[in-house]
C-alpha cells in the first residue's frame, strides 16, 4: 500500500520503459534500480531537445549556440548544487560517474604537485574505509596506498550488517588522513552513522568522504548539514543519464588540491613548460565535459524535486517494510542486512539455501520478467565477510509498487519448485 499523496501509477507513466513488454510477452518488473535507475521522459526529452536544437561546446564558444549550451550546462550545476544543499555552486564538480569522483580525491593525496599538508601521504599514514564498501570505494584507496606506501584499514561489519564502530578509537587515529565510507550500502541497504564517524575523524584531524551513490537518489541529502569534506554520487542511479556524476567538495579543499586530469578547460594559462589552473570546479573538469549528460542530470534533479525527495523516501520505506515482511514467507530465505526499516534504504539482498543467485535471477527474469541483480554487486569483500559468494538483490525506487514485490515473492516460490 502506498500513501495517497504519492501516485505511483502517475509516476510510472513518466518512465516509458516501464510500459515495455519483454520478449515472450513478459511484463517488465524492474527491481534493479540500485544498479541503475530508469529515466523519465522529462530527462530523455531534455537531452534529445538539447542535441537537436541547442548543442555546441561550452565555456569556450562565444556564439549563440555556445551561449545556449553554456547557460544550460551551468544551470545544471546550479540545480545540482541546490539539490544537495551545496554552499556554493563552485563546489560541484562534474565527473563521469561516482567512481571518477572517488578516484579524483584519492589522486589528490601523495601527489608531488600538491603542497597542502592535509593531502600529503606516505608510509605511516593511514586511510580508513569499511568492509561494506563498493569496489569503487575500495580500489582507488588500495591504489593510493600502493603508490604512496600508506596503510589501508577498514571498519568491520556486524552480523546485522551495520558498521562496527567498537574499535573506532584505534582505527581512526592521528595517522589517519582520510576516512571514506558509503552513506548507504548498495548491498545491505544500511544507512551509516555519519555523525559518529565524522566526530572521530575531526578529533584526529582526518578528512572525511562519503560515497553517496546510494543515498542521494533516495533521500534528501544536505552536504552542509552532513558536515563531511567530500561527497561523490552518480547520475544514472538518480533517474539521470549515464556518463555523468558529481563530486562535491568543500571549496577550500578543492582549492588546496592539486589538479587531477590535465587539459582544456581546467587551465588559467599554459606555457610549454608550466601552467596555472582555473579555480574549482573547472580545475577538475579537463576536456569537454559530459555536456548534455549534465543537462540531463539537471532535469533529473528537477524531476526528483518535483516529486519530492521526502515522498520518495516515504514510498521506499513502505516498499521496504512490505518486502521485508513478504520475503519472510519464502522458505530458507535469509536477508543479508538489517531486518527492519530503521536506518536502512530500499535495497534487500538475500540468499536461498542451495540455490545459487545466478539461477534465482535467471529464472525470475526468464519466467516472469523480474529484473533483480545477482552476484557480489561490486562488494566482494562484504560477501566474503558473510561467507557467501553472492546474493540476490531487489532494489526499489519511486516507480516500484507492492504488487511488483508480490510478483517477486511468487517468482521465488517458483524458483524453489524448479530446484526442489
Amino acid at each position: 500500500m502506498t500513501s495517497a499523496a504519492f501516485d505511483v501509477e502517475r509516476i510510472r507513466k513518466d518512465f516509458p520503459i516501464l510500459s515495455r513488454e519483454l520478449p515472450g510477452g513478459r511484463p517488465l518488473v524492474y527491481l534493479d534500480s540500485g544498479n541503475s535507475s530508469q529515466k523519465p521522459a522529462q530527462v530523455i526529452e531534455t537531452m534529445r531537445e538539447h542535441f537537436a536544437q541547442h548543442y555546441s561546446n561550452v565555456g569556450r564558444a562565444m556564439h549563440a549556440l555556445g551561449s545556449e549550451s553554456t547557460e544550460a550546462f551551468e544551470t545544471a550545476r546550479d540545480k545540482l548544487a541546490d539539490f544537495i544543499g551545496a554552499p556554493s555552486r563552485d563546489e560541484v564538480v562534474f565527473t563521469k560517474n561516482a567512481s571518477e569522483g572517488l578516484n579524483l580525491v584519492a589522486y589528490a593525496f601523495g601527489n608531488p604537485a600538491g603542497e597542502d599538508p592535509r593531502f600529503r601521504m606516505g608510509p605511516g599514514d593511514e586511510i580508513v574505509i569499511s568492509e561494506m564498501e563498493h569496489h569503487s570505494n575500495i580500489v582507488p584507496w588500495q591504489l593510493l596506498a600502493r603508490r604512496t606506501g600508506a596503510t589501508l584499514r577498514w571498519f568491520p561489519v556486524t552480523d546485522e550488517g551495520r558498521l562496527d564502530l567498537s574499535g573506532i578509537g584505534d582505527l581512526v587515529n592521528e595517522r589517519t588522513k582520510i576516512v571514506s565510507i558509503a552513506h548507504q550500502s548498495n548491498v545491505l541497504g544500511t544507512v551509516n552513522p555519519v555523525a559518529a564517524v565524522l566526530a572521530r575523524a575531526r578529533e584526529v584531524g582526518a578528512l572525511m568522504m562519503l560515497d553517496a551513490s546510494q543515498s542521494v537518489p533516495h533521500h534528501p541529502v544536505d552536504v552542509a548539514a552532513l558536515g563531511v569534506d567530500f561527497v561523490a554520487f552518480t547520475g544514472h542511479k538518480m533517474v539521470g543519464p549515464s556518463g555523468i556524476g558529481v563530486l562535491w567538495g568543500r571549496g577550500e579543499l578543492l582549492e588546496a588540491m592539486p589538479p587531477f586530469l590535465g587539459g582544456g578547460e581546467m587551465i588559467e594559462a599554459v606555457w610549454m613548460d608550466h601552467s596555472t589552473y582555473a579555480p574549482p570546479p573547472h580545475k577538475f573538469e579537463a576536456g569537454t565535459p559530459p555536456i548534455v549528460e549534465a543537462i540531463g542530470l539537471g532535469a533529473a534533479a528537477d524531476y526528483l524535486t518535483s516529486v519530492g525527495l521526502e515522498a520518495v523516501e516515504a514510498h521506499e520505506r513502505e516498499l521496504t517494510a512490505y518486502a521485508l515482511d513478504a520475503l519472510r514467507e519464502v522458505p530458507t530465505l535469509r536477508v543479508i542486512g538489517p531486518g527492519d526499516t530503521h536506518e536502512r534504504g530500499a535495497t534487500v539482498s538475500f540468499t536461498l539455501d542451495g540455490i545459487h543467485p545466478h539461477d534465482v535471477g535467471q529464472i525470475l527474469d526468464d519466467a516472469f520478467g523480474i529484473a533483480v541483480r545477482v552476484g557480489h554487486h561490486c562488494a566482494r569483500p562484504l560477501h566474503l565477510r558473510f561467507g557467501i559468494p553472492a546474493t540476490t538483490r531487489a532494489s526499489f525506487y519511486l516507480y516500484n509498487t507492492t504488487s511488483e514485490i508480490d510478483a517477486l515473492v511468487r517468482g521465488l516460490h517458483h524458483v524453489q519448485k524448479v530446484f526442489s
Partner: protein
Amino acid sequence: MITESMYQELILEHYKHPQGRGLREPFDAEVHHVNPTCGDEITMRVKLGDGGKVEDVSYDGQGCSISQAAASVLYELASGSSVEETLGVVDEFTRLLQGRGQVEPDEDVLGDAVAFAGVAKYPARVKCALLAWMAYKDALVRSTA
C-alpha cells in the same frame, strides 16, 4: 516459458546429483579458476594415463547450476576418453557456447553436453558453462608440460 530452453532437465539433474565431484589423488596437475563477474570457482585436477588416456578428472567448486552441471557433464565425458578426443569436445563446446545461439551443435561430438545449447543465448551465463571446461583445458596443458 523461455526458461525451459536453458534449464534443461539434464542440467538440473547434473546439478542436483553431480557426477565425480570431489578432489582425488593422484593427479598430474591442479588448477583453480574463478569467474570474476559472479564469483563461481572451480578447482580441477587431471590425472593422465598411458597412451594419451585421461584417467581421472576430479573437481570441487561452488557456483550456479550451470557451472556445476557443466563440471559434472565434463567429468562424464572426459574420464576414460583420450586427451585428443576430449580436446575435440572442448573445442566444439566452446564453439557452441560462444556462438550467441547461432551455432548448430554437433550432437555426435557433444553427447549430453548438447543440453547447454540454450545457455549460448545468455552472454552473462556463457562463462559459467565454460568455467570447468576452460579449467580442464588449462589443467591438460599443465599436466603434459
